[in-house]
């Protein structure tokens, strides 16, 4: 959380450059929200104020974001998504239970794009450990853009998920044909159990006559010998 103040400033600078003066004035008035009613309505109404265009972010901002929050990229975000994330960073409540209930309520009533914004905001919410189960729940989603909001350029999973949930996310990324290389923390979070599961998955794909994503071997190679890897790549899985 130490980084957040600086990042929220970067966010607000970017938002300001991407919307009209009127919309900015409205958003700026949402700074430091302290009650759940205000956060609910600001969150829901956002696209009506900001539109839904892709955010224009120059390289300077992009580099700054990467320095402040390694792994994060907002280059494919829409303006309503960025603004919703920003509003969530503005909301605080000293009562942890109340804070949790308010954010959880947003999740459980969210439409598709709201879900994307909420999962994108995971790294910036207070009490990071409170959201581990919610993140794991998001990984169970079948909505592609929701999965991508969790998987792509989002530092929360690598920093907070326990091994089983992390492994499930990586496996699901392969399973749903996601761009696995966009997951932050693949190297740091690589583990033997994940390699075992992925080998099993590769074996199944091979048996079904389906292609195997090359990124899969990248996550396996640390945990097998060069000879074993070559054999598997050629379709020989009996080790």
């Amino acid at each position: 959380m130490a980084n957040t103040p600086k990042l929220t400033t970067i966010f607000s600078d970017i938002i300001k450059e991407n919307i009209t003066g009127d919309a900015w004035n409205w958003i700026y008035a949402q700074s430091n929200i302290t009650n759940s009613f205000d956060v609910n309505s600001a969150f829901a109404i956002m696209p009506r104020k900001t539109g839904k265009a892709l955010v224009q972010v120059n390289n300077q901002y992009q580099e700054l974001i990467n320095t402040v929050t390694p792994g994060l990229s907002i280059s494919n975000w829409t303006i309503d998504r960025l603004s919703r994330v920003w509003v969530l960073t503005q909301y605080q409540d000293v009562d942890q239970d109340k804070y949790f209930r308010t954010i959880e309520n947003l999740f459980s009533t969210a439409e598709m794009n709201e879900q994307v914004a909420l999962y994108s905001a995971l790294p910036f919410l207070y009490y990071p450990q409170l959201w581990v189960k919610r993140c794991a729940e998001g990984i169970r989603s079948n909505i592609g853009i929701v999965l991508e909001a969790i998987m792509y350029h989002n530092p929360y999973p690598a920093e907070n998920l326990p091994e089983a949930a992390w492994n499930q996310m990586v496996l699901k990324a392969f399973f749903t044909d996601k761009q696995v290389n966009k997951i932050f923390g693949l190297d740091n979070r690589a583990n033997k159990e994940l390699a075992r599961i992925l080998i099993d998955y590769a074996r199944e794909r091979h048996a079904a006559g389906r292609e195997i994503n090359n990124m899969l071997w990248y996550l396996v190679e640390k945990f097998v010998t060069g000879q074993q890897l070559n054999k598997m790549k050629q379709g020989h899985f009996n080790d």
Partner: protein
Amino acid sequence: MIVSLKILKMCCSHNTEEKSVPLTQSTEKFDMDLIKGMRFFDPHVHMTSRTTDDYQAMADAGIVALIEPSFWLGQPRTGVDSFKDYYSSLVGWERFRSSQFGIKHYCTIGLNSREANNEALAEQVMEMLPLFIYKDGVVGIGEIGFDDQTAAEEKYYRLQLDLAKESGLPVQIHTPHRDKKRGTQRSMDIAIEHGLDPRMVIVDHNNEETVKEVLDRGFWAAFTIYPFTKMGNQRMVEITKQYGPERIMVNSAADWGISDPMAVPKTAALMKLNGISLADIELVTYRNAITAFAQSGQINETDFITAIDQSARFEGNSILRGGQQPRIDKSSIIIS
């Protein structure tokens, strides 16, 4: 030979009684070439109850956008969380499912008349509605109105009219199957009494008996093309000839009963065969519904082109792109 078929008819929330109906005697084949290049908007269809085959067929026939009104699910819900999950699915999962087939999905949110009769539950649902009606892509309060025309139905109909007025959203009115003419009149009287502009109210499930008054009083008149119990599309052709295209729209109200999600394109084809002008066909099968529901400020036609929001588009990965769901060859014995 007349064959009788027993069906349970419960369209768009209401009749549950069993009826004997004649098996269809259709002879004319639906020729897709007739509607080639045309776009359609189905302003009332319950996709939650339909399969992916329906989505594919609808997209192929030119349906670019639709509205899914909230209704009852065939059996009563017993708790408020069931409503919450249902409304969430209309703005979440179902919207996503639709986008995969290149169809822009909107919805209307409301407490249906049948379940308004469970007052304890209805109170809780009313409390929750403001959480959903302001969501992106919610284009109205609906479908609400009368079923049995009980006091409880009237109470929650009135409360939801106030909600519509307060939120500036259009209203989608379900008119009853039984005592229809009277129920339709009452629905309109009450809407006026609550200060709603008739131009913000879409009166649904009209027929030859109700249309004149609905139009004369300045409301939008929607017609549901639904086999056996509602309008047939031949009758719809006659109505369009008689009343013209102004403030008239056609929908399928397809749901979990025997219904046809292709009702709008099929009706357009039949209109064309019967000499109705292309401009008029466009009004009743596309434009009028958009004009009516766009008063919510939530419909943007440029979204139809990509069928999905900007935010659903991203480089490289195309599985979400509209109309790009993989097709399977149903005639093949092989499933791979």
